């Protein structure tokens, strides 16, 4: 152990060897190092951490539901293709199915307004009532 180490060790044990400048400097340093730092956590620190953990659990649940939805969609699509004997190379896109709407313009307008109305109801009444 060299002199400097010896001095640190003795000051630490409060067995000071003299009043030299080195000893005094070390005493000042050891005293300062024992003091609590100025940085303090807020009073609500634990609440904030618990809240973050809960939020993360909810986000994980939402993500799980999204993946279940995506998986269900893929399974349904595969099942439909298999059950209906759908073949990609013989597929032609046409709007024949919707041609009947040409005779009922009111039904088309009603359908559009009805869907918009439902969305508005959901946004203004249902979502605020469940706190989203």
């Amino acid at each position, binding site marked *: 152990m060299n002199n400097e180490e010896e001095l640190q060790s003795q000051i630490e044990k409060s067995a000071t060897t003299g009043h030299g400048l080195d000893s005094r400097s070390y005493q000042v340093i050891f005293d300062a190092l024992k003091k609590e730092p100025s*940085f303090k*956590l807020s009073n609500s620190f634990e609440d904030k951490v618990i809240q973050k953990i809960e939020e993360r659990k909810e986000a994980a649940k939402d993500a799980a539901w999204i993946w279940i939805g995506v998986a269900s969609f893929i399974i349904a699509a595969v099942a439909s293709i298999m059950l209906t004997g759908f073949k990609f190379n013989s597929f032609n896109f046409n709007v024949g199915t919707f041609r009947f709407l040409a005779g009922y313009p009111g039904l088309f307008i009603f359908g559009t307004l009805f869907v918009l109305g439902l969305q508005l109801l959901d946004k203004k009444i249902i979502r605020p009532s469940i706190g989203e």
Partner: protein
Amino acid sequence: MMDDHALVARVVKGDNHAFRSLIKQHSRLVAHMVGRLVDNNEDREELCQDIFMKVHDKVGEFNFQSKLSTWIASVAYHHSINHLRKKKIHVSDIPDEERFTTHFTSDENPEEQLNDDMIDSLVMKFIDKLPPQYKAVLTLYHLEHMSYPEIGEATGMPEGTVKNYLFRARALVKEKVKKYLGKELS
């Protein structure tokens, strides 16, 4: 107070009340580590939150080979070092001894007379200028009263390195403080 085994078992089961109690027991340690290693006050509290979230995630892997406090200190140390790296603050190497000593001790020109409080804050200002590895070792030793092996476990440093860093850090700060005290005495 619950023992560490029971506390950890309850946290693993998802008991928020137990985790709250774990935070209460170790928040001082985490705050000391982050407070000493990270300069930016705005980052500090958020970093402490992230550390406890990491503790929550990983506590199931804790195998009681060390004290719970040593393990939490290790999470806090490594998370703080990663934060400094992300902020592009150079932390990978301890600077070359001679060059760093010369640089560290040469840029002060004490002019004013100091009282005790001023000396304390001056010492802390000098400590802030040390490499983070030195600051971590000083904090764990002087504030948390950890032993050399415990500091080694918390920081991943060999015991000899811990002793060496502790000695060098104090010696470097002493050289600075000496200049001020010398002025005061003359």
